[in-house]
């Protein structure tokens, strides 16, 4: 069939497929073109087109064309319009062989040719399907990218948020710094005061102690030691008395 297609050209008036763009492009008619036929014209006995039988049927019935054929054959033989010679026999032999060959191997060869054709069409179909799916996918991808681009607002919101947060952090740091510094200075004063007071206290205590110690005269010391010894003796006696009791 592809071989047949190769022989067909635009100028031939064979019927073609109905499509909106598939019209007779000559300026005479804008009618849609009928489809390509799947098989060739019907024939009877392989040679004689069926149309002749249909043509003659109303007038002569079923046997009409056969009678016409037989009569024509008789006419051309008897009037020697066609002369039987050696060529006739050669034609008969060749015809037999050819018809036998076609009848036997025809279908296989036809199937093979059809298969070749089928493969070509299938390849083209795959290309077409692939193109269609990739185009549809491309459209979806583009739409997705457009949707992505719509979200650009969020990026700038995030950036501005970051800037605002940084500014706020800075402001808080400044405020904290001021308060802390002031507080530090006041606390320093308080700490200084407490330190002063403590030092004065300790100094005073030390001074008082020193004075007391120096004011103890040697006489006082002797008497206090003697008193201590007598006290101790008394205590020892008391202890002994307690122990023996």
């Amino acid at each position, binding site marked *: 069939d592809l071989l047949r297609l190769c022989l067909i050209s635009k100028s031939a008036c064979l019927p073609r497929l109905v499509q909106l763009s598939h019209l007779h492009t000559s300026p005479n008619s804008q009618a849609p073109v009928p489809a390509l036929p799947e098989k060739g014209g019907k024939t009877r006995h392989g040679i004689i087109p069926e149309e002749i039988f249909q043509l003659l049927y109303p007038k002569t019935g079923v046997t009409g064309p056969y009678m016409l054929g037989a009569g024509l054959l008789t006419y051309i033989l008897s009037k020697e319009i066609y002369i039987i010679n050696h060529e006739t026999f050669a034609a008969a032999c060749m015809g037999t062989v050819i018809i036998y060959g076609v009848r036997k191997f025809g279908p296989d060869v036809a199937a093979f040719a059809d298969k070749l054709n089928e493969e070509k069409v299938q390849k083209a179909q795959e290309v077409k399907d692939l193109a269609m799916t990739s185009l549809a996918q491309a459209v979806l991808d*583009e739409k997705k990218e457009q949707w992505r681009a719509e979200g650009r607002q969020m990026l700038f919101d995030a950036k501005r948020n970051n800037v605002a947060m940084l500014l706020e952090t800075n402001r808080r740091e400044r405020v904290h710094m001021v308060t802390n510094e*002031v507080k530090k200075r006041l606390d320093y004063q308080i700490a200084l005061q407490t330190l002063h007071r403590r030092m004065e206290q300790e100094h005073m205590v030390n001074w008082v102690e020193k004075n007391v110690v120096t004011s103890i005269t040697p006489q006082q010391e002797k008497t206090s030691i003697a008193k201590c010894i007598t006290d101790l003796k008394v205590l020892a006696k008391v202890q002994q008395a307690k122990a023996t009791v």
Partner: protein
Amino acid sequence: MHWRAVGHAYTDRKMAGKRAALKAIDWLAFAERVPPNQRAMFNNLKTRSDAIGAKLSSLPEKPVTIDWSFYKTNVARAGMVAEFESKFSALTIPEPKDTATAAINTQEAEANKAAVAYVEASKARIGQYEKELEKFQNMIPFDQMTIDDLNDTFPETKLDKEKHPYWPHKPIAEL
């Protein structure tokens, strides 16, 4: 500055009103819109934002209040506390200047322009794709085409009979 006139209450200083409110950002929705080749940049942005937010939330909003009465009674040096107090309440802390937002706004304007241009180009591309898709959909089936129909639908299959006048009308290598 209005807060000087308001009085020396410390809290009034905070109601500056110039600070822009923080917009809540839906990071999940944002993440969905990021194309895979910009994911690293997005992750960086997110970590930076999170760090900044953490730093902000770590600082208390109000500073430590100073107990002036305690200092007034306890500090010996005369007038020091009063002087400090008056100067402190008169103090205005300047707000940090916002230098970046203008740049961001210009960036945003540019990005908007670029995005609009991109969307236009994208729509043009979609139109092209859809046209080709239509051509494929309206095509006659291959087994009903003739060679002329094939050449019409796919102009690249047309054999150049001027360039290669003899069969097979194309370089042997391309057979």
